[in-house]
Structure formats: structure tokens, C-alpha cells
């Protein structure tokens, strides 16, 4: 196994990141408005690329609330990556969880989903959590 796991605790401005190479699973949870979003997201994008290259599959679970503009861009980069992997026959999927109380998050996830042909589920939760 050449890819390492990523484990980053949430801060006030960055989401918690949990990237499990063994399971081929990436989890992001929280608000995202990092000061330097390129620096924050670059390792995550890179991990995803390598995970797809080595496993031929990745599943992404999102529990995201607020995203600033550059985080929106980073998420679109991630989805573009998943889309091209999907076009190349890799098995990729996104589950976007949202709190039932906050339908706006679901509407935003719907916007992201628009150009994606891979499996992209938007799932309501009665209480925020896994």
C-alpha cells in the first residue's frame, strides 16, 4: 500500500477529513472556508487520484455545511476528477448527507450533482451525524 491515510481534525474554518486508503473511502465533515483552500484541498485531490489509480474505485461521503467560493471550486475539481474516472470505467460514488432541518444544503448538493453522471446520492438525516 503506497498511499497513506489522511486524518485531519475539524477546525472552525476547515472540515474534518478522513481518508481511508484500505477502505477506499473519503469523508469530509463540517464547514469549509480555509484561508488557503488550495493548500488544504490539494492533498485530498491527490489522495483521491491515487486511490482511484490503485483501487480502481473510491467512495466519498460528505457532511458539508458552509462552503466558501474557493471550497466550491475545490469540490467541483474533485467531482470533475470523479467524473473522468467514471468515464474510464472506475467505480466512484458520492453520498452527500444533509440535516433534514436544512433543506438548503440539499438544494446546493443538487446543484453540484447537475453535471455528474456517476452515482451521486443526496441523503436526508434526522440528526446530523453518521
Amino acid at each position, binding site marked *: 500500500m503506497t498511499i497513506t491515510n489522511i486524518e485531519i481534525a475539524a477546525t472552525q474554518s476547515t472540515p474534518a477529513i478522513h481518508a481511508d486508503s484500505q477502505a477506499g473511502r473519503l469523508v469530509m465533515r463540517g464547514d469549509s472556508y480555509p484561508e488557503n483552500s488550495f493548500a488544504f484541498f490539494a492533498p485530498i485531490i491527490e489522495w483521491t487520484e491515487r486511490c482511484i489509480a490503485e483501487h480502481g474505485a473510491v467512495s466519498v461521503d460528505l457532511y458539508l455545511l*458552509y*462552503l*466558501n*467560493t474557493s471550497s*466550491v*471550486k475545490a469540490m*467541483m475539481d474533485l467531482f470533475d476528477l470523479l467524473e473522468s474516472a467514471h468515464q474510464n470505467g472506475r467505480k466512484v460514488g458520492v453520498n452527500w448527507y444533509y440535516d433534514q432541518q436544512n433543506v*438548503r*444544503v440539499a*438544494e*446546493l448538493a443538487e*446543484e*453540484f450533482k*447537475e*453535471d455528474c453522471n456517476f452515482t451521486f446520492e443526496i441523503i436526508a438525516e434526522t440528526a446530523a451525524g453518521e
Partner: protein
Amino acid sequence: MRNAAKLEAQIRALLDSEQRRDDPLYLALEQLYRRYCDQREQIERLSWISDRYQAAMLQENRVLNARSEQQQRRLQKIARISDRYQEMQRELTRDLRTSATHDPLTGLPNRRLMLEQLQAAGQRRDTDFSLALLDVDHFKQINDAYGHDIGDQVLTRIAALLRSQLRSHDVCARWGGEEFLMLWPDLELSRAIEVAERIRLTMARTPFEIQGVQRTLTISIGVAGYRPDVDQDSADIIKRADFALYAAKRAGRNRTIAERSADDDLADRERTEI
């Protein structure tokens, strides 16, 4: 074009016939014709290269255009989603502000917002302002008889009735249990007493249906006017309204009592001095 082809055919026929082969004119024509053919071939080649080049440019242009349109679309999408996130955040902030400054039961401003408004009224200093503290008489009986849920419903209806009696720039806050504080930012004391009395009468005449039974409720009101000479802060005027409310309760409830005015104090003092 047809003429050119005809001329070419004619020349080729002449050259092929090989008549007058030794004539210097024949040799000159032959050379000229060969040169003409070379040049035509060169032009055709150049045109072919040029066409290919143009086709390649066109193709590249198309690819670039498509890419730029895609980028444009992507940027628009980022902006659209980002705008919506900001909108969401703004609403959240607004909701938070509302819940921090309003009473969740009645939707009226809470103490905090009322104190802010009072401070603002005190800072304006160009107009008199007055306020009234009012308390629903024997409200405990409603809670005891029907339970707190019904009591809360009645409070909500009272709040709506009070609000309907005020102008949009007047403030009516829930001050505590069944206590409300009303602020008239531009009324002097005597006008405020009139309005308060009108509200008291409206209240006494409005029946509330509680579990199928019509009941009337009364209120006691204490009114106070801003005194720029003595009021240090909003607590002072509220204290005077509270005293007046206490007096109204003591005097038998269902009445409006105004604080003692500065003139009353002066008259008292003069009387004592005499």
C-alpha cells in the same frame, strides 16, 4: 476558365503535331508552356497547403472555443453555488439575530431588544418618549385553571392584540411572564397615558375564547415619560413605570396610572414649603 482550357488544348495540339518543330517560335512556345504547367502545379500545391493550414486553425479555434465555453460555464456554476451559500449564511445570521432579540412564544421583541431601543430613544434627545409597563391581571388563574399550554396561547393572543393597537414604529416587548413593555418613541407622557388607557379599554372589551368559554381579561398599566434632567439610563424610567404599575395593582387593577410627574413633585414641595 473555359477559354483558358480551350487555349491549353489548342497549344497542346499544336505542340503534339510537331509541325514546324525547327521553328524558333515552336521552341519558345514549348518552353513557355512547360513553365506555365510548372507554375500551375506549384499554385495548386500552395493552395492545398494553405487550405490544410486553415482547416487546422479552424479546428484549433473550435477546440479553444469549446474549452473557453466550458470554463465560462464552470465559473458561472461556481459563482451561482457560492452565491447561494452566502445567501444561506445571511439567512442563518438573520435567524440568529431574530432569535437572540425576540421572544419565541409571542414573536415580540425581548428585553434585550427593548433595552437597545430604549437606549436609542434616549440618545435621540430631540423628542420626548414614553413607555408603559403592563401586566395581565390574575393571569395565574388562567394557568392554574387551564394549564400552561392554554396560558401560552392566551399570552400569544394578548401580544397580538397589543401589537394591533400600536403604530409600526412603537415597540412592544414581552418583558417577563405576563408583563409587557411598550415604548412610544415620540409621545410625551400625556399622550402616552391616553393611548395606554385606550389599550386598557380595548383589552377589557375583547372577549377571549378559552376552551369554548368567553372570558375577558383586564390589564393594569403604569406609564412613565422620559425626563432628560433626571434619567441617567433606561433603568430609571422603567423603574418609574414599574412603581406606577404597582400603584395600579394596589388601587384594584384594571386601570392606567401614570408616574408622578416632575410638576407634581414640584407642587408637593411648594405645598410643604408653604
